[in-house]
């Protein structure tokens, strides 16, 4: 069977339409229906070398529902946010349950000017044993900071000191 090579990925560029990135960062409601589970907020800053914040970075997430399922028709586990001029993004979502064999986590994808292709990373809620988290040297950098019981912070440092670990998928 012939196999086609995937199209070459290229940078998002600096002019990703603002309106494309709006209205998709609240995962708690889909088609007027409120998802089951614990509502949480995740915020973070995206920075480049020297800690400079980046504007209009696109951050997309994909996660399981409160029971650890990816195929719940009443929970839409995908969302998108863009950073503001201070480099800050935010999501409102449901705290994911554990998927079989994995600690609760949220997959992150980052698209931006100067990134030749997407970057992939994963946010965890606690530093526990997990087959993916265990592969990483600086595990603490993939564990979100708990700001309150409903609020977490997860910064994405693309390059430089305390650089976020990224995955090669």
């Amino acid at each position, binding site marked *: 069977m*012939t*196999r*086609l*090579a*995937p*199209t*070459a*990925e*290229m*940078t*998002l560029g*600096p*002019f*990703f*339409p*603002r*309106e*494309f990135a709006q209205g*998709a960062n609240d995962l708690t409601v*889909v088609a007027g229906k409120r998802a089951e589970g614990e509502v949480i907020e995740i915020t973070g800053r995206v920075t*480049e*070398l020297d800690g*400079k914040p*980046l504007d209009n970075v696109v951050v*997309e997430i*994909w*996660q399981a529902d409160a029971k650890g399922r*990816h*195929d719940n028709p009443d929970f*839409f*586990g*995908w969302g998108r946010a863009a950073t503001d001029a201070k480099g800050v993004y935010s999501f409102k979502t449901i705290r994911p349950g554990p*998927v*079989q064999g994995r600690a609760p*986590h949220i*997959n992150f*994808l980052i*698209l*931006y*000017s*100067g*990134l*030749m*292709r*997407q*970057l*992939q990373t994963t946010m965890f809620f606690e530093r526990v044993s997990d*087959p993916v988290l265990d*592969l*990483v040297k600086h595990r603490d950098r993939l564990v979100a900071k708990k700001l309150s019981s409903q609020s977490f912070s997860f910064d994405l440092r*693309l*390059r*430089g000191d305390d*650089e*976020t*670990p*990224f*995955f*090669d*998928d």
Partner: protein
Amino acid sequence: MSWIVEPRDPRTQSEGVVAGYAHTARRWPSQPLVVRPHDTGELSGPAKLERRLPPSKADLAGRGANRALGQLIHLRARVVDEDGAPVPGALVEIWHCNSAGKYLHPNDASDSPPDPNFHGNARLIAGDGGLVELRTIKPAAYAVPDTDGWWRPPHVHFSVWGRVWLSRLVTQMFFPGDPLNDHDAILNAVRDPEARARCIARLAPTTRGPANALVYEYQLVVRGRKAAPRMP
């Protein structure tokens, strides 16, 4: 249905720090990317993404007094997976600059004029054959600020969702025969000449499209192929 997503081929996919593109040295991670196993989270994806991202009209060119300036073109892009199978229902976002090289974006500081009739982005859903079609105008080339004479060739941005989370594709489409294509730092970061050639659209006979529009055909291949059925 289960899917397999294999590692990227470094000849056909670019990454890292690219000569002549200064931002890459400030933004691409300095540490090696960690290879991980894929499970449900990577090999599943959002169904009916239009529930979150509503589609728009498939026309950026307008008509009559509202017609955007520039050469009318008609883009016909097909979304397929690595098996060559069409991906009906795939969501596709498209954006590009106007016929003077200006983006409708607050961060575009160039002094090229905006076009009041050109709204530069569309969100479409692929039909049965994985096909999306967009009537628009041809974007212009523009100089990249703070570089030593880097001009972006005319190009169209695509953002595509495929079968699963790891199928996400963001890329740019170029136009055939433009001499700037040979000098663009982004297109030429793809090492394999055939992979680069596949990023250039094909000009089709104009009789196949709407009136007065040049028709460009293009194929977007998203990552992922069908997993072979397990032996009992």
